[in-house]
């Protein structure tokens, strides 16, 4: 039910307010998404969409963090975290 899918903002249709809308691409498929809650997103940003509205902008630095932790750590070898 709380499924939310990431997509790339490719075109703004209405930038501000209750009726803010953008075209968002999900692996080649474009859909109009309501953007009233994420008006700060820029073209090329990824947003997460639930029930037709964007609920958050993905932070790329935070998205990479898990992989940095994995490559820096010694999970399973020396046992040092």
């Amino acid at each position, binding site marked *: *039910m*709380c499924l*939310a899918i990431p997509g790339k903002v490719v075109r703004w249709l209405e930038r501000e307010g209750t009726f803010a809308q953008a075209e968002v691409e999900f692996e080649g498929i474009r859909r109009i998404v309501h953007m009233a*809650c994420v008006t700060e997103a820029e073209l090329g940003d990824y947003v997460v969409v639930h*029930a*037709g*509205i964007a*609920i958050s902008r993905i932070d790329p630095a935070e*998205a990479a963090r*898990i992989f940095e932790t994995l490559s820096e750590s010694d999970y399973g070898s020396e046992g040092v975290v």
Partner: protein
Amino acid sequence: MKYLDEYRDPAAAGQILDEIRRITSRCWTLMEVCGGQTHSLLRHGIVSELEGIVELIHGPGCPVCVTDQPDIDFACELAQRRDVVLTSFGDMLRVPGRQGSLLDAQTAGANIRTVYSPLDAVKLARQQPQKEIVFFAVGFETTAPATALALKQAELSGLTNFSLLVSHVRVQPAMELLLQSADNRVQAFLAAGHVCTVTGYESYESLVAQYQLPVVVTGFEPLDLLNGILACIRQLEAGTARLENQYSRLVKPSGNRAARELVQQVYQICDRPWRGFGSIPNGVPGATPRMGPI
């Protein structure tokens, strides 16, 4: 798909699984709060991989399943009116009330439409001004902004034929109720990532302090879930109880301000019966009379 595929990487998942096995000294009992997390844990075989190391109790986090039966009955009743088109999410249609499900009502001729978004129901209200378009609004805090936005758009568009049948529920009161139970075995929570995307997680501070258990905001992909489980076990093994955010690519401490404001403008919080739970204090944002003709 970017931001999904990389979080399903089997090698990285194996690395985290190994670490979980390495640090775990006994079988801990965690609860993943959201049904979406349960689905992913089962689908990707994480539950069976962790058998004997972590017991995962599946949480109450499926809003359609906890929707009170009288609400479903009322929705079925509304849908039988000739001037009404009842709309809702596909998930909601199969859940039975006391006199059958919305799908049963649809088969019997009631006017019920499945929509992907409540905003699609607003579009329908524009297209069919002679009909009353009712959106059966179910869902947690993740979904409430979308239904609030639908109501606001309808109002600003001057539509008088759009209404909501509100059956939204809030997650945190249910978590608190579980912890108050004498039978509670949950030692840590994987908090629902998309709920926290909207609400933030600051409100869990009091829960962590009061019940002295780890709460880790967790996403839905295998690496997210494994990382959330690892964070819980690290705390449990160390005997600490802290609030952590393992879904920081989406979740900020205070959530999404615009979404929270929308919900506050449209809804007010009240007690609410949950199917299988009984009444949950402060469990739901109910519709406020503020929205005038709608």
